[in-house]
């Protein structure tokens, strides 16, 4: 299980930092380098739009798997906003197969950029978790505590 802190150290802060009115703009967030020992796949960007929430990842194959191992993403992966029960389901994946399919790498020097598309979350300041498995193993892509502050989002053209 990968645990993400955030650059403000706000893991224990209020669940929703402030309640801003929903916006209809598309926002891009660059996720800063985080102080966690394991960051593979690395969360790179998060995009909010009316149609989807997208998270971009970069993965490099580790040395300890024969030929770099493999990757896949569970179809049950979802996003949740801390403090709320609603789940924002995975809609699509680009660059990574949805399980049971998987991509087998060919070497320990391989790498892969991929994006996951989820149902759109409200455009409000929040702490976001991405859950691939409710009871995760070290192989699951679970990320906790991704802090989104709407004022830090950059408008982008779709």
């Amino acid at each position, binding site marked *: 299980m990968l645990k993400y802190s955030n650059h403000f150290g706000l893991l224990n802060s209020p669940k929703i930092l402030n309640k801003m009115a929903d916006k209809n703009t598309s926002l891009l967030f*660059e996720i800063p380098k985080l102080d966690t020992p394991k960051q593979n796949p690395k969360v*790179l*960007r998060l995009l909010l739009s009316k149609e989807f929430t997208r998270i*971009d990842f970069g993965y490099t194959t580790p040395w300890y798997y024969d030929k770099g191992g493999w990757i896949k993403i569970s179809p049950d992966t979802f996003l949740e906003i801390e403090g709320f029960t609603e789940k924002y389901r995975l809609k699509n994946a680009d660059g990574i197969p949805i399980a049971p399919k998987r991509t087998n790498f060919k070497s320990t*020097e391989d790498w892969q950029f991929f994006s996951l598309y989820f149902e759109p979350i409200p455009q409000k300041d929040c702490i976001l978790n991405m859950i691939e498995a409710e009871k995760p193993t070290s192989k699951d892509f679970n990320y906790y505590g991704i802090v989104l502050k709407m004022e830090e989002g*950059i*408008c982008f*053209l779709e």
Partner: protein
Amino acid sequence: MILRNNMRKYPTLEEITEICKRKLDLEKLSTETIKKDMEHMREPQPSGFDAPISYNKIYKGYEYLDADFVMGGVSLTDSDVDAIKESIDLIRSIGGSRVSEKFNNAMEKILSTILEEFPDGTKKQSYLQTMTPPKSRGFEHFDLFYTACSTKTPISFVHYNYKKRNFNAITIHPFLIKEFENKWYIIGYSEQHKEVRTFGMDRVFAPIQLKKTFIKVEKAIIEQEANDFYGVFPIPNHKKQCIKIRLSDLATNYFEAYPIHESQKIQKEPDGYSIVTFQLVPTIELTRLFLSHGYHVEILEPLWFIEFTENLK
């Protein structure tokens, strides 16, 4: 031209067809084709040419109602037409993977028009061949970066560093696209690096146009990036300077035949060897070029560059 010929006014459809057949060296050309072409020429722009072609019932032939009319405002002579035909060969040879989709589409339009005009063009043997390697990864972003440079739009993209094996999100304020040895690069101010940086398009993923203020770079820096480099990756902390090398007689031939930069100056010695100077920003590619010539190229100045190159051996 046929309709402006004062020596033979009011040509008939058959006469026009015959002249076109002769001029364009065609085996077959029907009067129907010419009739359709003239109808097309009569159509208003942009689909047609607004040509004031009219059938004169008294003289039973065609004429321009406006005697000064020329198509597209440009009158083509026979030699112009020949030049266009020759250019088609060149355009064909540099087409395909070396140009963007947008340019390729435009080129296809021109080629199809030309083929309509000169249908025998495809039958001719091509006398020109250039390197047309397969499309490279990342080249699909060419149009987006080109637009971003011209509209001054910042771009967010994910970059993979081959050497460090890591991914990073980058925000670039691009001002130049550069091609070197069929590799494409985007150059601009990187917010993360807080300086002008060059990124290989093959390592760029998911570029997105941002709605934020564009950071402009000094004109002198842009000009330097465009003019004072051999290659694309400058050796850090070294400005444009004089680089002096000594070439063997063999290497001298190549550098004389294929100068690598506008600033290249060759001073030949009696034994055929030569001293060559350049005014360049030292780059990784320049170092590689010198090393690729082995003992035929000896770097003389500056001293640090000699050491730098030695360390790469």
